[in-house]
Structure formats: structure tokens, C-alpha cells
């Protein structure tokens, strides 16, 4: 297994579950941005392609003490990926500064081993060729290639926007990096210069996107030492780049499996600076 690579930049999210109402705007924005095909009957959720899924969490208490929380689940962009390590053809890897786990459609052979490996169910398979109602393909963006049947796909943190943001800086004559503390480099992209489509769309501002390694970014402050932050399945050691925030303990406890007498864990800090 490859070692958890430390990058100068680590794109990540802090998703505020105190703010999410589960309205679905992020899901629609994600599909539109990444050229996912619509389906007339989407009730078989095990066959529906959604890079971002909003789960419904309940405190399981009877009325009127019932509480409800919505949890949007993009690809967790693990530092220690269950998926990329098992891919037989290197169609997915985490090898680029920014720490985004790639998915290369023309390389994927569709063996679905990565899907079996991912405990977050963040990976989706093209069971059939995608079909758009006649004419609707005109609304596809040029940023993301359209996937044929037989390949696996997943959230890319809108990687194409990262590329575009870097190009904007280059054409403006700048460098894509700026020096940071302790000999680190930070991306020169301004904090709002690269955001994912879901984070951008959310009218409640529930999804905060940025560089987990950059102290100037909001996600950095929200994720370090925040007792209200947690990650999904922390104890599996996947070292995800998606943090969740909730002021409610029952929500944080649902972020991982706990034996009855175990206490809810505080989040581990993200990777220390190894330089």
C-alpha cells in the first residue's frame, strides 16, 4: 500500500451539519457541473449515480424529541485510500498536490474493486450508457468528459475548477504557489477562487471548501482543534479530507462505529507537517 502522501496543499471540506437542510441544491449542482445524466425513475438508490448524496440522520427518538440532520457525502478524498490502492490499472490515485483522489475514465476497466473497497459508497458505476433527453446534451459543460458505460466514477472535488483556477493565475502572469509557514507552499489561488460546485451552490453555506493546510483558510480554522468537528469512520484510518461539524453529540457519534461503552472520539488532527 502506498504511503499517505503529504502535499503542500490539501483540499478539503468542512460540512456544517447545523446548517444543512437537505434541500438538494448541492446534488443538482453537482450533477449539472459534472455532466451526470438524469433518470426518470431514480428510486433504486443503489443504481442511481450521485457523486454527492445527502444522507438523513435521525436521533431515533420518538416524537416530539426527534431530531433530524442531513449529511452530504461527497468522495471523502482519503489520505489513506481504500480504493486507489486496490485498483489494478492505476485508474485512480492520489498523486497530485491538493490531495484529490483522481478517477481516470479512459483508464478504468470497470472491475469495481474500488467500489467494494470504499466504505463510504462514494463510487458509482456506469451500468448503462448515459442518456440525456433529446437536446438536453446541449446543456453539458465542456469541463468534464462524459463517461461511457462500464467505468467507475466519483466526486473529484470539481478538479477541473482547480485546473482552471491555476490557469487563470498563470495567464495573469503569477505563480501558482505562494510561500507559507515552515517552508511550506500554499496555493496562490484565492480562497474563493476554487470552490466545488456543491459548496458554491449551497444557499446555507453549509459546505466550506479550502486548503486544510493553509492557516489563512476557513477550513483550517474549522477543522483544527475543533471539538465539534469529526470525520466519517475516523478509526478505519482513512484520513479523509472531509470534516463534518455538528454541535450535537449524537450526530458526531454517528460519524463512526462505537461500542456501547466507548466515548465519542475527538477528531485527530490532520497530517502533521512532515518536512
Amino acid at each position, binding site marked *: 500500500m502506498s504511503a499517505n502522501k503529504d502535499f503542500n496543499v490539501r483540499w478539503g471540506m468542512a460540512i456544517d451539519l*447545523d446548517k444543512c437542510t437537505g434541500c438538494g441544491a448541492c446534488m443538482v449542482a453537482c450533477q*449539472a457541473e459534472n455532466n451526470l445524466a*438524469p433518470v426518470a425513475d431514480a428510486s433504486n438508490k443503489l443504481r442511481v449515480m450521485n457523486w454527492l448524496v445527502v444522507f438523513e440522520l435521525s436521533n431515533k427518538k420518538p416524537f416530539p424529541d*426527534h431530531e433530524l440532520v442531513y449529511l452530504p457525502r461527497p468522495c471523502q478524498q482519503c489520505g489513506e485510500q481504500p480504493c486507489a490502492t486496490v485498483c489494478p490499472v492505476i485508474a485512480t490515485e492520489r498523486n497530485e498536490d491538493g490531495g484529490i483522489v483522481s478517477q481516470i475514465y479512459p483508464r478504468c476497466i470497470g472491475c469495481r474493486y474500488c467500489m467494494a473497497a470504499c466504505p463510504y459508497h462514494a463510487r458509482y458505476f456506469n451500468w448503462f450508457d448515459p442518456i440525456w433527453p433529446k437536446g438536453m446534451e446541449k446543456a453539458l459543460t465542456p469541463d468534464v468528459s*462524459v463517461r461511457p458505460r462500464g467505468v467507475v466514477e466519483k466526486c473529484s472535488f470539481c478538479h477541473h475548477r482547480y485546473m482552471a483556477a491555476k490557469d487563470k493565475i498563470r495567464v495573469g502572469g503569477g505563480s501558482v504557489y505562494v510561500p507559507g509557514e515552515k517552508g511550506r507552499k500554499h496555493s496562490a489561488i484565492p480562497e474563493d477562487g476554487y470552490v466545488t460546485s456543491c459548496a458554491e*451552490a449551497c444557499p446555507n453555506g453549509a459546505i466550506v471548501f479550502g486548503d486544510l493546510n493553509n492557516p489563512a483558510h476557513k477550513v483550517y480554522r474549522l477543522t483544527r482543534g475543533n471539538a465539534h468537528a469529526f470525520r466519517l469512520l475516523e478509526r478505519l484510518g482513512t484520513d479523509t479530507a472531509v470534516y463534518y461539524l455538528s454541535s450535537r453529540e449524537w450526530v458526531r457519534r454517528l460519524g463512526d462505529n462505537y461500542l456501547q461503552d466507548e466515548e465519542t472520539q475527538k477528531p485527530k488532527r490532520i497530517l502533521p507537517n512532515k518536512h
Partner: protein
Amino acid sequence: MVLDRRGFVKCIAGASAGIMATPLPWKLLDDVSIWTQSWPWIPANVRGENFVVRVVSKTCPSSAAVKVRLVGNRPVRVLPDDDHPLGGGVSALAAAEVHMLHSPARVKRPLLRGPDGAFMDISWSKAAEIFAGKLKEAGGKSAFICGDETGSIAEVISALAKGLGSEDVCLMPSEGQCAAKAAELMRIPGQIGYDLEHSDYVFAIGANIFESWGTVVRNRRIFRAATPHPDGKTRLKARFAYAGPVQNNSAVLARPWLPVYPGMQTALALGVANILIAGGRTADALDFGAFKELALRYTPKKVAQITGVDPKGLESVVNALLAAEAPLVIVGSEFGQGAGAAPVMAGFAVNALLGNINRPGGISLLPWDEAVLGGASSRSRLYANDLAARVGDWAAGGNAPSLLVVHEANPLYALPGAIPAKQAFKNIPFKVAFSSFLDETAEACNLVLPVPMGLERLDDVRTPYGSGQSIYCVSAPVAQPSEDVRPAADFLFSAAKELDLKMGAASYEDLLKSRAEGVVKTDFAALLAGTGAVSHEKIKVPEGYSLCPAVLEKNLMQASAETSFRLAPFVKLNLGTANTGIPPYNTKTLRASELEGKDMFVMMNAATTAKAGLAEGDAVTLEAGGRRLPARLRVFEGVMSDTVAVCLGYGHTALDAFSQNKGANVMELLSAVPEPATGLTVWSQAGVAVAKA
């Protein structure tokens, strides 16, 4: 040499060996796999230059301000417009708008119902001819329904109607209409606005402010800006409380959510008023004395009895309101319609008691915008016409018009089942629909005139209900229409010309320009660029305004139906509107617990489910007023006791595969009764019987 079998085999063997030493097999192996990258039947990326155009969505009822991203001349994305007072994020509906431009449900060309009952394609000139002929023929016996309360199109329709000698111009029922009626009765000559931007504590009673009440996207943006993220240290200050029967998208964020029976907004608001008055609060209304007397009868205990609210919870919310610097109480319908004027009046009274009328963070009294076209009714005047009552008349026979023109509205789907809209339609000999989509109403019309969607036409938005300030926005078309469509306004202007009717403006653009430059006093070009014109002008609180205690009392007296369960409809924007149906890109946002194949789920809490003798997953039939609704049951603990929660937006029979065959339309179940003393028809309280199917 004769090639024998052995030789042939050798030859083949040689060829096989030889071919391996050429590029052929290897190149083919490689190229075949490269071919799989770009199969011709998979849509390819079409590159182009990026442009961004700022518009206000005419499709999303929240009037969300958005930016449309175009590649070349193709709109590909709807992005938020954070700098616009109506923007900040996108709704699930607005996000799907560019794809709806290519929706299979769109009307592609003018359709005329032929003698055989089937639609046939006709040309626009033929359509214009028929339309003008029918207008001339019907004259004053024409009626109009307009589904756009914020756009100037309502004014065009009204001017045309006036010209023809008809007063029958109705808007579709909305919260704005209820508020307008309330203002009228309270003798407030303006539009009630809500200055959410500056409020530090909001208590929404019924009003689902994050999904269906007012300027939803703006409301959400304000909430976003005002609420910090949890940081593990600071105790977060509660800023928002919600009272309603369902743990909906607003209730999820509320601290606390106060569960109440459906349709209990007025009583609950009076309960709040009671505590405030008991604490010494007064208002300077003319009839405050009578109001006080009424409110004092609504003690927390009594209110708890009527509404089912937890009195302690209510008290804590009122205390929070009192502790807040700029508290705001918003009272509205739980599903965006049909609650009548009384809840708004009660809400106004509570705000008056809190002393926040025309104060920052309180209720703003905004001037009504006046009509620009001579002869046209103003918006406030149009609100006064109650469609439901009129449709009832038409169905009864006598007064049915000979021509009905429906503009971007779907009354056959969106009106309560108790209102005999279908019968009314039968009684009207000729019906015309201006619609982008072939919805239930368009299907029932004789002439269907396809109109461009909001993104394809020039249109405007006048202060949407809920906004805390006057705002005027103009949207320029961002895309060429993808079908053979004509803007309704242009079509109406030319029809008027044909009939020699004076409209007071040469074209729709002319009208918008006059409004911009004459009324709003803003540069039209700047408006076209997508900047809304905001005015902070307010009207004074009128000296002699009334809290209408008599009206409130009559409404409170109205007995609720004698059925075992109460019906709580609710709205989710991702299911689209009555006009759009479920947008193609939104079917995936429907949860497995909401829809499974054709079955939609209605929700009851476990105790209620047990009381009804039902179990999770049961096929059930809801029945009210002799009308039945099939569904399946989901046990969900976020529903008030004895209440069945049902989501609107399902059960379309028209439109396309993305909307059809999905659940049933809960509007069918709703009864409609006249609201005492207001003249509005209301359908917010409905009893329902639930039985195993």
C-alpha cells in the same frame, strides 16, 4: 501449385505469425481501447468561451438571483449570485433550470385542439389569428389567470382585459395575496415586508422560510451570514425558532422546533400576543383594546389545547423574542398557499407588540408599485381577486366566461380538489394557455401557446413577497429559445394592436423601461446587466391601522373538520412547481423514503401510526371530502401527533416521464372554505381519514 489442406493451414499459420510482426494487431488492440474513450453515441464536450450573465429566476418561486454560465451561446450552469439582494446560493429548482430548457415536457410549437380532440401543430400567424378572433368574440366575457405575481406580464394581461371590458384577471393563490388582503383589511396601504437582514431572532409560525415562504434563497443566505459554524467552544446562540406540524427543512434548523397541529398559525400567534400583552406590551393600533381582550383569552394553556404546542416551549421562544434586539415573527402558510389573511394579521399584531414595525430587523411597510400601463390594475388590486371563488362560480354555470386565458399557471393541478376547476374548464368554451410546458392545464386548453422560459426572455421581478425592501429586477434573455416560442407579452401586445386596444406601451420592453426609468428611477441598462434596483423607502405606519380583532376572532371560531387525522401538506422546492413539474435533474434528489417507483410516502409518527392501526410501509388511502389519495406510509417521528404529512408536487398526469407516474397530488384532498370576513378562500385546515388500502 495446388493449395491443399495442409498448405492452407500452413499459409494461415504463416499469416498469423507474420501479422504479429506488423503493427496491425497491436495498433488495433490499442485503438479499440481508445475507441472506447469516445464512443460516438456518448455526447462529446463542446468547447467555447465562458460568459456569465446575471438574471433573476422566473422559474423558482423564491425569485432567486442567479448567474447563468454560458459556453459559447449555450447556457450550461446556474450559479449563485452572491452580490444580489435576492441571491446567494441556488435553490434545487433554480439549479436545474438550464436543463429544463431542453425538458421533454416543453411545448415545441403552437398547438390547437382539432375537431377530433387531438392537438395539432399550427403556425404562429394562425395562432395569432385565432387568438385575436376569440378575444374579439368574447370581449368582456374573457377571463384571465396569471401565474406570475411579480412580473409585469400581469399588468399587460390586466391592461388587455380592461381594453376588452373584463375585470376577470386573477393571480394564482399565494402568500403574497394573503398578505395583501391582510394589509388591506388592516388599512395599511403598502406591501408587508420582512427585514430579515437585520433581525437577530426569527420565529417562523407555519412559514417554511427555507423552502416555500417568500424569498427562500435570500432567507437562506441571511441565515448563513448570521450563523457561525460550531467551533467546539462558543455556545451557539439560537437565532431561529419554528412552529409547524412537520419537521421540514425549516424545522431542521430551528432551535427549537415547536410541533403544532396544521393550520394553527392564528391561534399560536395570539398565544404569543397573549404572553407579550401579559408582560405589558402594547401596540398603537386603533383597536388595540379589542385585540387585547381577544388575545388575553388565548392563554398559553388554551393555545396549547387548540394547537397542541408545548406551552413551555412557546414561553421560551417568546422569552427569546423579548431578549432579542431585533426580533421578527413571520406567520405564513405551511405550504405556501391557502392560509388566508388572518395568520398574517395575527403575525403583524405580534410584531407590533414587539415594537418592530418599520424598525431594522422588523416588519417593513413597502410602497406598492403602481401600474405603468394606463388602465391596468396595480398589483395590489389584482391580489384582491380571489381565483378560487371565481372558479367555483364558473363551475356552477351562470358566470362562466366564454374565453379563458391562462398564463404560466396550472390551476388544474394546483388548486384544491374541492374547487371544481375541471368542471369550470368544461363550462368555458375556449381556453388558451401560455405555457413553456405541456402541463395539466395546457392539456385541457384549446389553444396552447408556447412561451420562452425565464432564461430565454426579457422579463422583470417586482418586490417579491417576503423581501424587506422594495426591489426591481430585470432579466435579459440569456439564450436563444430552444423551441419555436414567442414571449406571451409580445404576443399579447400584438393581439391588442390587432384589436385596436390602447395598451399604453408599444412593447414589453417599452413597459419595463418605463417602469425602470419612470417609476423605479434607475438606468434600464444597469438593470438589464442584472443589478437589482433596491429602494429603502418605506411608508409610514398609518395612524389608524387596525389589528382586526373581529376578523381574527371569526376565524378562530371556525371549527376544524371532524375527522380523526389532520392533513399537513408541505413543500420541497426540488420537486419543482405546479408549472414545471419535477425537473429532470431533480429526480435523484428524491429520497428512497419519499418515493419508490410510483408510490409516494406519507408520514406519521409512530404513536399516530399505532393509533391508526397501521405499520411502516403499508399501502394506505387518505380520504377527505370523498376524494381519495393512494400512498404508502412511512413512520417518521418528525410529524405532529394525529397528523399525516404529505409532500406536494407529486401526481402529475401531464408533463414528462420525470414528473408522471410519481405518487399522487395532495391538493386533491384539500377542501376550500371562504375565510370569514376576508373574502379569500382558504384551504389550510383539512381533516383526513387514513385507512389501509
